[in-house]
């Protein structure tokens, strides 16, 4: 991904890309605000896969305080995290 593309990929786009990824992986429709942990959609293996996916796809490092539950609850919250880490 080039710098300009990276800069223009706003939060909504990231969220959309993440719901597609989640749909692809979980084989169910996932809305941007669905709570992955509360609904049991995400197991522990998948949680870590998500971290690696976010890091690789969006070129961020997710460590320490950013590994909070709130950051991973939904596609939208993950998009928020990525946007924040990139700025």
């Amino acid at each position: 991904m080039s710098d300009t593309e990276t800069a223009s990929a706003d939060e909504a786009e990231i969220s959309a890309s993440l719901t597609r990824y989640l749909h692809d992986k979980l084989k169910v429709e996932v809305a941007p605000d669905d709570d992955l942990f509360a609904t049991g959609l995400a197991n522990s293996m998948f949680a870590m896969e998500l971290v690696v996916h976010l890091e690789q796809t969006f070129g961020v490092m997710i460590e320490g305080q950013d590994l909070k539950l709130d950051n991973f609850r939904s596609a939208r919250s993950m998009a928020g995290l990525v946007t924040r880490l990139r700025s």
Partner: protein
Amino acid sequence: MSTGVTEETGERALIAGLVGDRPGVWDLAGEIPTAVLRELGRQGLLCAQVPERYTGRGYTSERNGELTAYVGSLCSSLRSVMTSQGMAAWTVQRLADAGQRQAYLPLLTGGKLAAVAFSETEAGSDLSAIGTRITEGGDEVVVDGAKVWVTGASYADLVLVVGRCTDGAGVVVVPADAPGVRIEKVADPLGCRAAGHASVRLDSVRLPSSALLGGGGQPLPLLVTTALAYGRMSVAWGCVGILRACLDAVTEHARTRYQSGRPLAEHQLVVRHLAELLVAEQSATRVSEHASRCWDGGAPDQVTATVLAKYLSSVHAVRGAASAVQVLASAGATDGHVVARAYRDAKLMEIIEGSSEICQLILGQHALSR
């Protein structure tokens, strides 16, 4: 990689020098001299993947894997301590904030020893049942709970304790000498006898809130999987080491021991054991290498690759060690002997960091979800 053969030979010579021919004695005594562990720790060899900026060796997973296999071929107890130390360092790297990384990682490469405590009497395979509480209040945290079978805890200066926070879970770095901590060694473990397994009781242990990695509140499943990922990688390579030690012992014995006028190596039924051991050692090496390369390349499927490597390597190690004892027969049938240790040590590798059944569940799910 710029790290040449020389450095590799150097670190192996150093380890060989510290370990010598004593793993058998350590096994019988149920203890490794702390001086040996501290020296390996100071050399950064117990957690060699710690980045250089934290005074670590900055090894890749693959390079650390080969190192782990080497240590595992000498002594699975020592390798277990290494697994715990590496898992502790990895957990700090992943969960800690910048200040905590700066505070703890140089300790872990500077001779301090660490263990990681997940399991409780009611929370073994099912870690969602963890009951240990981390209560946050003002500038301190209070830890209450009881952990069991914590590898390396009897040697540890620091125990990383996994517990529940108000929201989600957390890992607290507990000094072993903090008031309210009681560490009690497991008597007579089946294998890895000198790995310092112990139970850890925590009664109202008060620590500054800086001891709670990343401020806590991480999802328990994520936290557990993160830490275990390193442990699984390390166990996979450790089992490669067990298989290498067995292969060496068995080929040497088959060449030199004569029965019915021929070396054992000329009895076909014995040769089959050799062939199977070679296949086991090679298969375990290849899957572990693959998982390490996924890890080093940041591939999301590293998570599954790691479980697959741990599963296959430990299952092969159990089978391989059993056939090694078979071929050595009475020559390998005393405690402390390399194949006798392998036989007992390997079995435990099928239980820890996700038992074979738990690995099968994960891998089965993966097969279904493709």
